[in-house]
């Protein structure tokens, strides 16, 4: 029906198969966009860990016992997505198909072939081989080993009409549950919706392990938390993992760019993701195309921001963004510190035998506290997409972590624990994590004799 409407409108159609998923297949018909897309290969550097002191030094503690404590890197770009998901230490023998969902153009084909079995299928054994089979022999040097099947043209475009389209059912369904029919979107909407297939918070619903977006109550952090505490629990989803320092049942937040943008200054003003991340650029003589090099708009202020903000100089705009981001990041540091302390305080509650009921109360506040900073730390604009919303969530987070600490203090004092000593031990532990140079080993210092892994205690 899609191609029908297109013919009706007498649009240009390609010579490509409607099922084309290999990126290099688009090269001949769209050499300019393809060339632009190749720029995503440019940072040929290796992955850079986020665990270093000037990025996110506390994460190996905060994500203890979850995959994210093992390896978590800065992004490299769409053309590396497939390679990166295959090589990350977070993938283990039990990883499932759902992890492929936002990494490869093969996903719609996998869904066609496997149906709902795709989601829970074994990642390494089934999904990777099948994915790669679709592109066998079609590798292209310029895209490295896996770029031909990494996030690409067919994820966002109909290969025949090149119209924008949604290929991930998780998005379509989540929007429908909010009463929004994405097939009726405007062009301007689609310029954000294509990104919202992936740049969003998700969880695996417990039944079929489908990638699901927790948006039934709305897109704000508090609305998603509400969902997780109610609807998700009713459906059997209790937590993403159990924290091994505090024993708290945790939620993991992931890249909610779309959510934060949606109620930030630009989202509310109808400025789309593509407006900033895919500006028109001049190539080859005077031809103008949509940039397909997704990166920071701050590398290209002239074409991105200054199209709309032409009354401001580049320097003004850079300064403005820096001010927003540095205020945001300072707050993030303080917020995470509370969360770290809360985990260790509750660890001590457990080891000294505080009442179970109070421990559980504190654990719930840890869960809440972590959700409200993680949803912001996982958002990749360092606050720019939504300065007020980000700060509000961090405020909520600090309040919850501090509540956990208050409960702990009360119970620990009742049991005669020396809080000064406890603080000193926490500080020592944090320093041990910071001082470890190998990012892969940092998490091993987060538990120790003072703060044992509570999941390994025998009681």
């Amino acid at each position, binding site marked *: 029906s899609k191609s029908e409407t297109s013919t009706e409108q007498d649009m*240009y159609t390609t010579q490509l198969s409607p099922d084309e998923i290999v990126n290099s297949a688009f090269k001949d018909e769209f050499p*300019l966009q393809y060339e632009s897309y190749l720029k995503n290969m440019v940072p040929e550097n290796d992955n850079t860990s986020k665990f270093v002191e000037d990025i996110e030094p506390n994460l190996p503690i905060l994500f203890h016992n979850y995959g994210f404590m093992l390896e978590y890197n800065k992004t490299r770009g769409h053309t590396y997505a497939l390679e990166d998901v295959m090589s990350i230490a977070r993938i283990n023998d039990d990883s499932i198909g759902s992890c492929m969902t936002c990494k490869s153009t093969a996903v719609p084909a996998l869904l066609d072939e496997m149906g709902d079995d795709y989601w829970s299928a074994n990642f390494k054994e089934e999904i990777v081989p099948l994915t790669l089979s679709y592109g066998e022999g079609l590798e292209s040097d310029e895209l490295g080993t896996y770029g031909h099947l990494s996030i690409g043209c067919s994820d966002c475009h109909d290969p025949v009409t*090149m119209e*924008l389209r949604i290929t991930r059912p998780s998005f379509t369904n989540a929007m429908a549950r909010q009463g929004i029919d994405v097939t009726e979107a*405007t*062009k*301007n909407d689609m*310029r954000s919706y294509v990104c919202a297939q992936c740049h969003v918070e998700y969880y695996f619903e417990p039944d079929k392990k489908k990638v699901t977006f927790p948006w039934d109550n709305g897109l704000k952090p508090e609305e998603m938390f509400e969902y997780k505490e109610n609807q998700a629990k009713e459906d059997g989803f209790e937590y993403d993992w159990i924290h091994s320092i505090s024993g708290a049942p945790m939620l993991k937040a992931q890249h909610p760019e779309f959510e934060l943008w949606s109620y930030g200054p630009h989202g509310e003003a*109808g400025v*789309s993701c593509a*407006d900033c991340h895919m500006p*028109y650029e001049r190539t080859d003589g*005077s*031809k*103008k*195309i*949509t940039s397909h090099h997704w990166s920071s708009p701050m590398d290209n202020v002239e074409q991105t921001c200054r*199209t*709309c*903000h*032409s*009354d401001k100089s580049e320097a003004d705009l850079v300064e403005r963004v820096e001010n927003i981001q540095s205020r945001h990041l300072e707050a993030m540091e303080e917020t995470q510190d509370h969360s770290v302390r809360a985990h260790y305080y509750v660890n001590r509650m457990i080891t000294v035998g505080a009442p179970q009921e109070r421990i559980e109360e504190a654990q719930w506040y840890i869960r809440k506290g972590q959700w409200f900073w993680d949803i912001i730390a996982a958002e990749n604009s360092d606050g720019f997409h939504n300065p007020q919303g980000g700060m509000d969530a961090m405020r909520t987070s600090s309040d919850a972590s501090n509540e956990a600490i208050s409960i702990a203090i009360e119970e620990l004092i009742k049991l005669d624990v020396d809080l000064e000593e406890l603080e000193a031990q926490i500080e020592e532990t944090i320093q041990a994590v910071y001082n470890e140079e190998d990012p892969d080993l940092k998490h091993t210092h987060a538990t120790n004799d003072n703060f044992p892994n509570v999941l390994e205690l025998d009681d």
Partner: protein
Amino acid sequence: MVRKKLLLVLSGIFIGIVLFAGTVGSMKATDSPEFCSTCHIMDDYYDSFMDSNHATLSCNDCHAPNDSLTAKLVFKAKAGASHMYMNTLGSDQIPDNIHATAQSQEVIDKNCITCHEAGLENVAFHDVKEGGCVDCHRHVPHGNGGHKPEDWFDPGSYDARR
């Protein structure tokens, strides 16, 4: 009723001015920035336009349809009558802030596209914003600095008590 009649009369006069000589010359004159700016109300728009990259154009390169002469004449007569009416008899109805009408916006957008066809033809999906070109190019050609003249940003010598 009376107003409608007046409007008609005024239209007549305006069309008259335009058609009077019927020459290229007078057509040009009524397109020019100088003509539009004879109304003081246009000062802001004139100033901001004169500061812009489009300063060599005439107002009606954007503000009147340029696809056919008759379309242009009809539009100019209609717009002109309304402007004259507003500036004379209807002056108490002039809004404090003048904004382009929906019809104007459509005309303007078409004109942007006409001029910039060459640059645009390679961009298959360029009509992405409901508000048209100025949803992105917000300051073309009016409005840089929120209608603030440049001398507002020159250092002054103000009195200040210490």
